[in-house]
């Protein structure tokens, strides 16, 4: 079911990772992504894998739920791995028709695959454990210096926050419209490619209509509450660092240093 798409959605639980300051989680995710490209060895992946696994356990996220969230990238992952496997030049291990498999190919396919997996895992752990509001608060604070060169930081983070908030709403709406059309005999699962694309029209038209209606409603509701951008706006719950955040930063520095110095 469409509802099973969990990527980018908040997963409520009571854990230390959930309580961390969102700025830590945001920079942490960036640190993880950067460190993924700093090494090219088995031990590096062991380090990153260990880190990600530890965070998942500490965040009390059910493994099944996390894995289910990876399903949408499966296709991309396979695609990338196969290309890497077949198109990397080097020491030939075997060949078939126009394809050759090389030692370097296997290595690079494996590593690229692992990189992509950790990248998506890392960023989805962030969204699983941080509400969209907190996440955009963090972005706004982290990028605040850019305001000096007239970048509309607040407006950008408001846009992102609304976009994130709309993901589950639109998924729910999609689910509802799909069911309503299925009740009228629509078939989204069978048939060839053309049939399936054509079958999407009864889904997409109402979905767009409703997205525009919701967007209009939201804009009106915001204006009715005198929203006029970020200038002079204060926070109901300003972000504040706690001791655990300092520890988390130290761990992150450790991760980066480890990634740089690993052979």
């Amino acid at each position, binding site marked *: 079911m469409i509802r099973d798409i969990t990527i980018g959605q908040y*997963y*409520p*639980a009571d854990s230390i990772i959930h309580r961390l300051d969102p700025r830590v989680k945001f920079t942490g995710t960036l640190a993880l992504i950067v460190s993924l490209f700093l090494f090219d060895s088995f031990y590096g992946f062991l380090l990153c894998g260990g880190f990600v696994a530890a965070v998942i356990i500490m965040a009390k996220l*059910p493994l*099944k*739920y996390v894995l289910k969230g990876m399903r949408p990238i499966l296709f991309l992952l396979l695609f990338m791995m196969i290309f890497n496997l077949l198109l990397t030049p080097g020491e030939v291990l075997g060949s078939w028709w126009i394809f050759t498999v090389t030692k370097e190919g296997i290595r690079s396919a494996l590593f690229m695959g692992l990189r992509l997996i950790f990248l998506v895992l890392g960023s989805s752990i962030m969204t699983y454990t941080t509400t969209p509001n907190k996440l955009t608060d963090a972005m706004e604070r982290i990028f605040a210096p850019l305001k000096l060169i007239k970048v509309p930081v607040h407006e950008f983070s408001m846009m992102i926050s609304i976009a994130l908030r709309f993901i589950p709403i639109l998924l729910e709406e999609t689910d*509802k*419209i799909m*069911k*309503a*059309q*299925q*009740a*009228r*005999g*629509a*078939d989204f699962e069978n048939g060839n490619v053309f049939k399936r694309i054509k079958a999407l*029209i*009864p889904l997409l*038209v*109402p979905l767009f*209509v*409703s997205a525009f209606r919701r967007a209009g409603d939201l804009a009106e509701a915001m204006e009715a509450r005198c929203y006029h951008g970020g200038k002079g706006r204060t926070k109901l719950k300003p972000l504040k660092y706690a001791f655990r955040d300092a520890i988390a930063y130290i761990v992150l520095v450790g991760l980066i240093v480890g990634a740089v110095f690993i052979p």
Partner: protein
Amino acid sequence: MSLILDNISYIYGKATAFETYALKNVNLAIPDGEFIGLIGHTGSGKSTLIQHMNGLVKATEGNIYFNGADIYDKDFKMKELRRKVGLVFQYPEHQLFETTVIRDVLFGPKNMGMEQLDAELAAYGALKAVGVGEDLLDASPFELSGGQKRRVAIAGVLACKPDILILDEPTAGLDPVGRIEILSLLKQIHEEQKITVILVSHSMEDVAEYVERIIVMNDGEVVMDDSPRVIFEREEELKAMGLGVPQVTRVCRRLHSLGMDINPDCITIDEAEQEIKKKFGLV
């Protein structure tokens, strides 16, 4: 023709933090030709229950039999079930998508595999039954008023010629006139085409006026299943579930408790009118 729900349970978001029990051990039999009201407090599982009836949602536990056939059997023809059990969702106007009204109504019948001519006949018939005039056939469904859109959407399901028609709060958000029109329309369809109608509603007045059997849900369970008159005798229990009895019943009971010689169990305005007229010797 019958629909039997055998010990149905349903859990949303199984094995996650979002796990909610939406249905618990529901047993129901829906025989032919009844006009049934399904009531319950918000979140009691009404919408979830009716989505089981045409196989859109698969029960976590339990079985459903349509005319004796298990609908979860591998070779059960789900499309046939979807045609015979028509489901009109809440705010059905949000599903309209075609360029013209008639094309939108034709969507269902064509999917169900009707011939072009039969499908068109069914579509015209359905639009006529819901009171959409011929002048609107070629209008864009997005240009219609809210009430007209709702009718077109109901026609879209009716055109599939279902044996059981289920409607999820078809009168939500309509004005009083629109409400009465839709409800009398359902009654008329029920009587003329002899189909089973299941009406999900929050309004005790509506169900008292139109249905012959009420199913009451609370917290995912079916707690009462009887004729309106019997159900509305259990006023205290209904109140405890956040429901109640029709206003006119409350009035009659109050008058009765004040010592007036009047039947405390009137459930429709007509009945109460007769009672009061009788009391004052006007009939």
